[in-house]
């Protein structure tokens, strides 16, 4: 791209790169048209111009101010974590917990995945390694009841943060989406303003279906931000751009490995650069 004169062919090449990064046909075509228009007005004349333009457009999607965690003014801050099966929720919770602890905050975990085999045990192992406590319920029990107990315990123990793990669910499973709404409402009744953050975990390998995931999870639980997991592979995670375009959801963290240290705040410039690395 860099160093070449802009041509119709090069513009098509840019569209191809965008699609291969999973931003989706619609978003890719829109961005391509913007470049095309700039070219026709002679504002964009080289590959370098196009690349700089594209970079600035993409970075502008993600302003600084909405990348922070919103903490409660008083009492426990509740962070609800949701997403489809295997996206990386439980591991991402270990990462969030570690970084909260590193900031000196006390954390309590809620094991609301009462469905999947050994889901509670998985969270317990992380809690042991991180030195935090977990509130859990019965296997197969009502996850909202666990959330309620956990909210109770968070207030009673005066912890700074309560992080809630939930079972993986597909956005197409209406009863499970209603269950998520119930979990959210239950903690809201116990702790005013809770959950203060609802984090949707999206696997960076996700294709166009990610847009529907974001849409329906937002309807069910007012998603406030995205944790983009598994960005340490070769997938570019461009779906978060399409999600931003359609739903205006910010990305707050990225996951880059399987240990609690493998988390970074979302940094738009390096994310965008990495989207186009050969």
């Amino acid at each position, binding site marked *: 791209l860099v160093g070449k004169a802009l041509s119709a062919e090069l513009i098509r090449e840019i569209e*191809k790169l965008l*699609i*291969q*990064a*999973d931003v*989706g*046909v619609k978003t890719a075509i829109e961005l391509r048209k913007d470049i095309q228009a700039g070219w026709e007005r002679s504002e964009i004349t080289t590959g370098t111009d196009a690349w700089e333009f594209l970079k600035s457009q993409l970075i502008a999607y993600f302003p600084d101010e909405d990348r922070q965690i919103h903490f409660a003014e008083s009492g426990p801050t509740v962070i609800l974590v949701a997403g*489809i*099966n*295997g*996206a*990386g929720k439980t591991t991402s919770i270990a990462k969030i917990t570690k970084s909260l602890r590193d900031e000196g905050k006390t954390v309590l975990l809620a094991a609301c995945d009462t*469905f*999947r*085999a*050994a*889901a509670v*045990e*998985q969270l*317990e*192992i*992380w809690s042991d*390694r991180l030195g935090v406590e977990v509130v859990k319920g019965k296997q197969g029990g009502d996850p909202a009841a666990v959330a309620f107990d956990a909210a109770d315990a968070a207030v009673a123990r005066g912890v700074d943060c309560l992080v809630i793990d939930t079972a*993986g669910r*597909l*956005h*197409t*499973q209406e009863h499970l989406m209603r269950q998520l709404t119930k979990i959210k409402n239950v903690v809201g009744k116990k702790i005013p303003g809770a959950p203060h953050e609802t984090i949707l975990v999206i*696997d*960076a*390998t*996700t*294709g*166009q*279906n*990610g*847009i*529907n995931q974001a849409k329906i999870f937002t309807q069910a639980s007012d998603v406030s931000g995205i944790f983009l997991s*598994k960005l*340490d*592979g*070769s*997938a*570019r995670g461009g*779906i978060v751009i399409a999600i931003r375009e359609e739903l205006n959801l910010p990305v707050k963290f990225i996951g880059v*490995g*399987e*240990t609690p240290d493998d988390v970074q705040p979302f940094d738009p410039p390096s994310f965008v650069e990495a989207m186009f690395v050969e």
Partner: protein
Amino acid sequence: MLGNLSEKFEGVMRKLSGQATISEGNVRESMDEVREALLEADVHYEVAEAFCETVLTEALGESVLKSVEPGQQMIKIVHDELVKLLGGEEAMDDEGRPIEREPIMYVQPGPTIIMMSGLQGSGKTTTCGKLAGYMKKRGKNVMLAACDLQRPAAVTQLEVLANQVEQEVEGSGKVMFHGEPEKCAEYGQAVGVAVQVANRALESAKLQGADVLILDTAGRLHVNDELMGELRQVSNAVNPHQIYLVIDAMTGQDAVNSAKAFHAQLELDGVVLTKFDSDTRGGAALTVKKIVGEPIKFIGVGEKLDALEEFHASRIASRILGM
């Protein structure tokens, strides 16, 4: 939100219907719609391009241009070509019913060794449980072996599933479990241990007369050389008869890279596509089939142990096209 190919074609053909003849240019134009539909379904960019070229040649040869319903004719060509790419239509008997083909080849004497592989969270462990159920129903004795020593509680997860299958699934087969939880370690500390566990699992499977041994393995990134090497070592140690790649059907354009790398390291024998119960169009299936060349054996359609189906090319083709 996602456009539907039939609708798109109707639109194109309506535009064309005012004209006396349909030209090659018109057909080319409608191929852009096909391309877009494929990309929206997560078919890989280059696979989509190549596919459109093939269809175009076919369409012009099949004299779509002279056909009474060119739109319908085009849809049929696209659909049939997709089915071909996905592994072909199943064989039918004289009454037009699909002939049952056993998707798994069992060796005599056993145990038939099956190894699962794939990216993190794709559904390997769950699929091990589902396969055990599938085989138990068919009278096979199955041993599940926990060769993921890394992910917290992975061994317990497989053990719980093994017990669940043994208790809940009807069938004369027996489901056994081999796990060595004391060998688990934190990330990076257990690399290579899986090889020893797999060896001992094979011994135990032989001793206990298992017909099938299914090895669960840790999720790993195709770009992680150390862990990909471990998987190759496990494979060299026990010589699986079948190695499956488990792929999340919601995967986007990167499916091509991971499938290529796993296939290069392991020479895969088949693919299991999971989470097909979502609303994904599942275009990654097409990409993966093209890369791996081996059949898609099963699709996962839920979290429960019986949510495993044999693969049908034509159903998936229609779904990719949004029909």
